[in-house]
């Protein structure tokens, strides 16, 4: 039954997350808060870190990770592998259907004024959705077990500030994540 729900939930994400990887975050955040118990909001931060620092599209990586966790909880390793595959399949099936339909009349689609208008309206709402999910993740990370995690907050603020520097802006996220891991080990967080 879990696997059926996994497919259904990730199919929904694949159908409504417009704009690629980051757009899936609000949906995953919603899922973390749901009654399924596949993963919690704390694990979501780990999922994002792993997805950003491994090869492949971030959205696909996150679906695999989430599906693995869900299946693993239920049936151990075999369930994890099956869960990862099912969640990823669920994510890409709507995309395949939509793209194949659009591919038949590509030009008229991207020039269609209703399509353009719809996305003009969708883009800011996606930004708002991502913002509220990110706020939730930050709140979870900064405030743990009833207290502010000051070292974590300071590391986050330093990296956030450094990323505004022009020369550092284009560094790969994996660089910052490794830096964070080292800082975590050194400070014994």
């Amino acid at each position, binding site marked *: 039954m879990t696997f059926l729900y996994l497919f259904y939930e990730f199919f*929904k994400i694949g159908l*409504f*997350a*417009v*704009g*690629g990887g980051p757009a899936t975050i*609000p949906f995953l955040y919603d899922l973390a808060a749901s009654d399924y118990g596949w993963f919690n909001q704390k694990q979501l*931060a780990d999922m*994002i*870190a792993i997805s*950003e620092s*491994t*090869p*492949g599209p*971030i*959205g*696909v990586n996150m679906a*695999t990770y989430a599906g693995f*966790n869900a299946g693993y909880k239920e049936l151990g390793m075999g369930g*994890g592998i099956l869960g*990862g595959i099912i969640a*990823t399949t669920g*994510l890409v099936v709507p*995309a395949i259907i*939509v*793209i*194949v339909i*659009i*591919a038949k009349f*590509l030009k008229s689609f991207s020039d269609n*004024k209703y*399509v353009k208008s719809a996305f*003009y*309206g*969708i*883009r*800011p*709402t*996606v*930004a*708002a959705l991502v913002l509220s*999910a*990110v*706020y939730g*993740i*930050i709140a979870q*990370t*900064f405030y743990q077990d009833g207290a502010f995690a000051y*070292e974590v907050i300071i*590391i*986050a*603020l330093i*990296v956030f500030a450094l*990323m505004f520097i022009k020369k550092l802006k284009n560094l790969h*996220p994996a660089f*910052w994540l490794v830096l*964070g*891991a080292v800082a*975590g080990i050194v400070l014994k*967080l």
Partner: protein
Amino acid sequence: MVKKLLTLFITFAKIGAMTFGGGLTMLPLLTKEVVEKKKWATEEQLLNYYAVGQCTPGIIAVNTATFIGYYQAGLIGGIVATVGMVTPSLIIIIAITAALQQFMDYPVVASALMGIRAVVCALLSHTVITLSRKSLVDIVTAMLFIIGIVLSFVLDVTPILVVVVGAVIGVAVNKVREVRKK
């Protein structure tokens, strides 16, 4: 046909395995493999696929793979290219997650993960800034941004409904503008 499908699979598996981050970071390698080597599309076509991939549901990289595969070998081609694209992710992520389940309780791993979470917060904040900059272009989109925050944050509405509200208002506003012009 089988050979074509195999080539599609291998090419996209290679792209999936060699790019970190998805989305636009994939473009240079896609250009090299799909445009220059295989000549499955011109550079302009590839950019078109990308543009459509960005404003249709789903992962941009997957959408692009489906496009190219479909034009090369029909529906089955689209599916095979997409499967190729996601296979490396599946293998790598499952291996890492499985390993992580075993090592999660070691203090060193827990400390490292805590530091990583801090960095994730910083990276995500930058993602939000970039997304907002790109999408908040006028007063209407700014209002929609606020509406989106109220719906998702204060009223805890499902993200699906928020996206639909954005689409409906976008169409309605542009319709009104059009009528006014006339």
